[in-house]
């Protein structure tokens, strides 16, 4: 029995990665849920919006690196992030003008907007692959670790090490700052309040003189910023590949739906629910059990519930369970 080492192993392989991944999913899901709250459709192009924002940030990062700019130990991409956000927000705003506005004026059912966003998804996906190519890009620089496994071992004298990568720490810090700012914005500024009013009751909001085009524009800018930040953090933590970002759509939507579409708090909670389930269900708990079981007992097998490749199944199963038992999500989202 050695619960302390068991805890360290668990933290190293489950808790720390899941917290970082959960923060990335939460930021992604916030974008989906905000857009749903205001424009009332689920945006299939969100994964590719993340990819686009990340791509622009990568280009800006390369530019900065070539110019010799560095903010080590922090990654240069952090400095390039505003460029990515600005370009992505501009693209989304232009897309809204050229594509979505027409359908909004005609008050089409939300399922049509869903199909329209599929078209946008194709265009963005093609654009990203055309500009940066379909391959893998790593753009993380600066310090690799906040604390390495070896440092942790010498520091604490335990058998097991706990490594925290700087990108994981950065993800959590950035996510906390962004979420705090977003909630302050939604609850305390005039624009944020008008967004919430518009989302709660469109007709009433229009009657009180809220300019709908302005609300929509602000929403797209926020969505662009959230998508870019989420994408860049994910890319720093893992790596950037257009197809992976397309596939992120599934856990992000699962997170937004599990929390309740349209509910920002729900999106954050959903992100962590999905991330912890994905990591927990696909992790082999053998080592943890080794430390927890009395010395003479052997844990049977790897104690892994599902192979890592089935992580999509996890998002899906959570989604189905939540929808069967709480159809509006954990935090009571809205119905279309």
């Amino acid at each position, binding site marked *: 029995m050695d619960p302390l080492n068991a805890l360290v192993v668990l933290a190293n392989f489950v808790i720390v990665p899941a917290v970082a991944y959960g923060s990335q999913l939460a930021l992604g899901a916030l974008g989906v849920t905000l857009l749903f709250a205001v424009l009332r459709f*689920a945006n299939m192009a969100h994964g590719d919006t993340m990819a686009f924002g990340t791509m622009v940030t990568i280009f800006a990062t390369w530019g900065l690196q070539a110019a010799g700019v560095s903010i080590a130990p922090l990654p240069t991409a952090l400095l390039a992030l505003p460029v990515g956000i600005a370009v992505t927000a501009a693209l989304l705003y232009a897309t809204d003008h050229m594509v979505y506005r027409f359908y909004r004026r005609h008050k089409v059912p*939300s399922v*049509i907007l869903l199909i329209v966003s599929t078209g946008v*998804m194709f*265009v963005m996906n093609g654009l990203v692959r055309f500009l940066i190519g379909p391959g893998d890009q790593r753009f993380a620089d600066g310090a690799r670790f906040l604390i390495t496994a070896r440092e942790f071992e010498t520091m604490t004298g335990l058998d097991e090490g706990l490594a925290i990568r700087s990108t994981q720490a950065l993800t959590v810090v950035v996510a906390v700052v962004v979420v705090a700012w977003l909630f302050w914005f939604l609850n305390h500024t005039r624009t944020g309040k008008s967004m919430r009013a518009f989302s709660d009751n469109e007709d009433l909001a229009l009657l009180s003189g809220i300019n709908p085009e302005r609300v929509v524009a602000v929403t797209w800018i926020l969505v662009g910023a959230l998508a870019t930040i989420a994408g860049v953090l994910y890319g720093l933590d893992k790596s950037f590949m257009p197809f992976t970002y397309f596939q992120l759509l599934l856990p992000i939507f699962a997170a937004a739906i599990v929390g309740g579409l349209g509910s920002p708090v729900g999106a954050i909670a959903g992100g962590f629910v999905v991330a912890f389930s994905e990591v927990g269900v696909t992790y082999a708990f053998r080592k943890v059990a080794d430390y927890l079981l009395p010395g003479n007992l052997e844990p049977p*097998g790897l104690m892994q519930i599902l192979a890592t*490749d*089935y992580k999509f199944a996890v*998002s899906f199963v959570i*989604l189905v369970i939540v929808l069967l038992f709480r159809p509006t999500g954990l935090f009571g989202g809205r119905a279309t």
Partner: protein
Amino acid sequence: MTPALRGFALFGLVAVLLLGTGLLQGWNSALVILNMGLISALMALGLNLQWGFAGIFNVGVMGFVALGGLAVVIVSMPPVTVAWSAGGWRILLALAVGAATIIAAILLWRRMAKGRRRGLAVFALLLVGLSLYRALFDPARDAVEAIDPALAGYLGGLGLPVLLAWPAGGLLAAGAAWLIGKTALGLRADYLAIATLGISEIVIAVLKNEDWLSRGVKNVVGLPRPVPYEVDLQADPGFAAAAADLGLDPVTASTLAVKAEYGLLFAAVLVVVLVLAQLALRSPWGRMMRAIRDNETAASAMGKDVKRRHLQIFVLGSAVCGIAGAMMTTLDGQLVPAAYQPLRYTFLIWVMVIVGGSGNNFGSVLGGMLIWFLWVEVEPLGHWLLGIVTAPLPDGNALKMHLLGSAAHMRLLTMGIVLLVVLRFSPRGLLPER
């Protein structure tokens, strides 16, 4: 222009495009595009049943297509007898135990009174069932996968004629669709979309990882063919003489003949499904489906069982996609799980249905052929276009290299633009529903 004339004109356009391909790029290329176009048209018909007739937002087409492909392996490959004796039956037993556990859990959930005891009982049942399943399954799987992994390492199939795999693919997809429909239909469109997208990814994950079933990423190659091999045709003196009469050399003639035979088989299936779909659309059943699509509340007030009808048409449409998937794998002669991509096998089919005209069966067939033609031809066109654009740049210029190398990605961009333009300016498609 009357709708019928419009249809003839557009189908004529497809024919002209294919003939042009034949004259410019060779008849082999034209037949390759035609064959895959016929299969795409069938997939589009399947999706049109679900979306056009009933308004079910299914973005899991890829999963049903892949299940059809799996059916080809299961039906037509010779069984690996050693693997069966090593653990095949045990795997089947384990799967039966797993299924029985889930059914028992559902029954228990329904029978017991609400409360904490019910939750605990169901949880305990699932835990015991899952442990039993893993205890039975894991050693059997390892035993099967250990047998000659370079060539076999899986159970093989039933060794039946490959044409039987087409209806079998439909049945397999229909079975899966029934299970999925039972749980997911009735959800809102956006929830259903993400649920079906998830299921299709799970199907692909299963094909990639369950080596005992489909050899996973090692792929199953050398699937039996329903048509003769080119070499056999070339060796046949009668065929060589016939080819010489047409002024073709035997090698070219044999490749053309094989592709044409596939084309005839596919066209036959397509015509049968199209006639059935058209009869269904015009029947009282089809009118009821469209009534449900247009106003669910009113239809259910009229006593129509909306849930049941939705399940019915979801299963039928998925079965058609499964048949098309089996045909495609037969044409390829191999099952490559890693080749299934949602953009190509789900969203492209959506583009076909929308561009063709949702709710119109002929529109789906047209959309399938036309969009498939575009999908194939955009790449050489993009290359040619970028070649002109970059002509002033010197050879070896980094930008020029990058642009020419990226020409292949023009197709996604083009498909998106085509979809957006059609949705904006002609939302009912090229051949609108009547």
